[in-house]
């Protein structure tokens, strides 16, 4: 990545600062006192050199956080044709659920206009999960309703896709449903779910990887 190897010059600088530190303790010759004044500058210089990346190695656009931190899975036509959703899984087991770019909602004119979390038996946005142990988190099945996404002409149900505890819904979508249109795979995520390891393994078998999903959708 952005590793800058320590040049000989900075190595020398660092040894000088160690010596001057020793000089401070021993309070000896005057020449080292001069080095001490410069010491602070040396440190900054070293830091600066370390921080400056090698331009030639930089990509034009960096990989997104989603790309680097999550493994992407897809659930095409979940319970209904055209309802394509994604499940991004983090190495720590948490799953972020949202609308895949090929979801029918995006084909409607004007795109997504509103999001309502008050579905099923409760308002999903009203749940407050607290503590490390995630008390109060509701356990949902993969077909439990998360929210309704409304466009000008129609409304679509979004479901969990993964059996587990609901940790968080993206309540920003209530005020800013346009996030779904602009970045459904990042800021426009729908919810975060915590499945048990066994439940995840079961669901994983039914999901598609990125390549498979692309191939499938290209055919349409």
């Amino acid at each position, binding site marked *: 990545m952005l590793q800058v190897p320590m040049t000989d010059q900075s190595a020398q600088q660092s040894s000088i600062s160690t010596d001057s530190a020793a000089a401070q303790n021993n309070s000896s010759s005057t020449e080292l006192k001069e080095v001490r004044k410069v010491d602070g500058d040396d*440190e900054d210089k070293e830091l600066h050199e*370390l921080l*400056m*990346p090698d331009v030639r190695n930089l990509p034009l*656009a*960096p990989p997104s956080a989603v790309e680097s931190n999550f493994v992407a899975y897809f659930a095409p036509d979940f319970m209904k044709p055209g309802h394509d959703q994604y499940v991004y899984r983090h190495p720590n087991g*948490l799953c972020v659920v949202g609308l895949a770019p090929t979801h029918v909602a995006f084909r409607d004119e004007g795109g997504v206009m509103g999001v309502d979390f008050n579905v099923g038996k409760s308002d999903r946005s009203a749940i407050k999960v*607290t503590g*490390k142990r995630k008390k109060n988190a509701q356990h949902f099945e993969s077909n439990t309703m998360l929210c309704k996404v409304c466009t000008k002409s129609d409304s679509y149900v979004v479901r969990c896709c993964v059996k587990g505890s609901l940790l968080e819904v993206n309540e920003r979508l209530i005020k800013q449903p346009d996030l779904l249109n602009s970045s459904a795979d990042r800021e426009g995520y729908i919810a*975060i779910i915590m499945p048990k390891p066994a439940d995840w393994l079961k669901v994983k078998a039914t999901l598609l990887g990125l390549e498979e999903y692309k191939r499938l959708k290209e055919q349409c």
Partner: protein
Amino acid sequence: MADEAAADSLLDVERQEAALASDGDADLQAFREAVHSLPSDAVKDLMSAWVCSRCIFRLFGLTEPCSCPCLSPSVFTERLMPENLVGSLIDGGSSESEHSTSLPEPVVCSVCLGILQFYHNNDVQLLVSKDGMNDLAASIAELVKQEGHQTDSFSLEVSIPSITLDNERVIMSYMSRKYGSQLYSQERSFSECICLKNALKSLIKAPLETLLGVKYGQGPLHIRLTYSESSKTIEKSVEHKFGATSKRRKKGNENGLETVDGLMNSGIGCIATGVGHSVVTDTPVNGLQHHQSSDFSKLLLEKVRRPCSLSFHCNRDPIYFGGRYLKYSRNVSQTCWMIDEDRMGEASVEEIISSCILLMCRGDKYKFHAAGREDMDVRMLGSGRPFLVEIQNPRHVPSDVLVKDIEHKINSSREKLVRVKNLKLVGSQGWTLMREGEAEKQKQYAALVWISRPLEDPDLLSISSVRDMCILQRTPIRVLHRRSPLDREKIIHWLVFFFFQLRVIIERIKTCL
């Protein structure tokens, strides 16, 4: 011939006594007076119960003769011989026999089980020497020297089997009942009994001070003597006759150090008697009182008592090194990170720094503490992260010069993964510094940023004019599985950028909390 031999042995005794007298005339004088001051029939009773001389003194609460170094039992009996104890004692095979060349098995004290007599059982043979105390001190000093400990003071910790306390209690209550009134008239009581541990400590203290050349005190060096019952003692099943196990368990926490022995005793008790737990705790607590007189006679009858096994260890208080570290590699974790026996990453900061220090101090183990953490794929630059290395049982406390050497050695290693600054020995203030460092938490971060459009001057101005901006950070998904989902307040103190390319900025962000 026999007469001559007897006369010779008597002469030997005289010569020995003379030698002793020349060594510690004043001591001996005081000793003689002390002996004479004790009620003779009580003493006679105790002696016939095989209570050693030091225990007799401490039961009566006399400190000086108890701690007299040249106190051999023979001298004691010599003193009391005029009181016609000789007959019964010789019949019982007394400790007088120490004078003869062939040593028959010496009698172990029924109260202290040989602890104050300095008889130790090595599981192989009974170690008895005339000068048990000084021999023990010598062996301890030898161990300390072998380990190579440096210290200016030492402390003693003693752990004794709880049966000695039971024995003491039995004897005390017996004596109070039998001689209580007599002692009261002499203005004495048994309540001044000196505890076994203190007696032992005061005995061993002086020779150790001389041999080690340092003072006794709270000292960083701790010498622990652990006396444990030899398994053979249980064969006489003295325990479940006393029925004192339940009481012993309560007593077990008297001086915190006994718990191990208490457990071990009951463990061994179960093995030897071959019966389960219930047998030993069968007898009710106050059963002790009922059995007392009969128990005492049992004490008298059961002459075979094995002395305890002794093990001693020395351990020094840990020392602490403080400093700051920098991490230049994106493949080095902070602490040793293993998943299923596989190491994650190339190395760990903890190992690089601590193993070097541990080697120089010749310690047993290290513990690494840092004020905060960073991920493995993140570098630690700038002034560095404060850390503390705790070295347990160090044999050698390095000087300032040596500490500088250690720092230099870490910094000049081939791989240049980690660097250390300001390494030094710290006392207990090291911990407060760490806590402060964690609480204050003003951190500097550097990030490489890609901007999606060209930047203009107004943009740069708005970036660099940020001062103490409050933001709310929601728990990142990365840690959401183990932290509470909360919005936490953060403050961005300032932003500095290095304008790199039209589309790239490096930002240094300083944050707090």
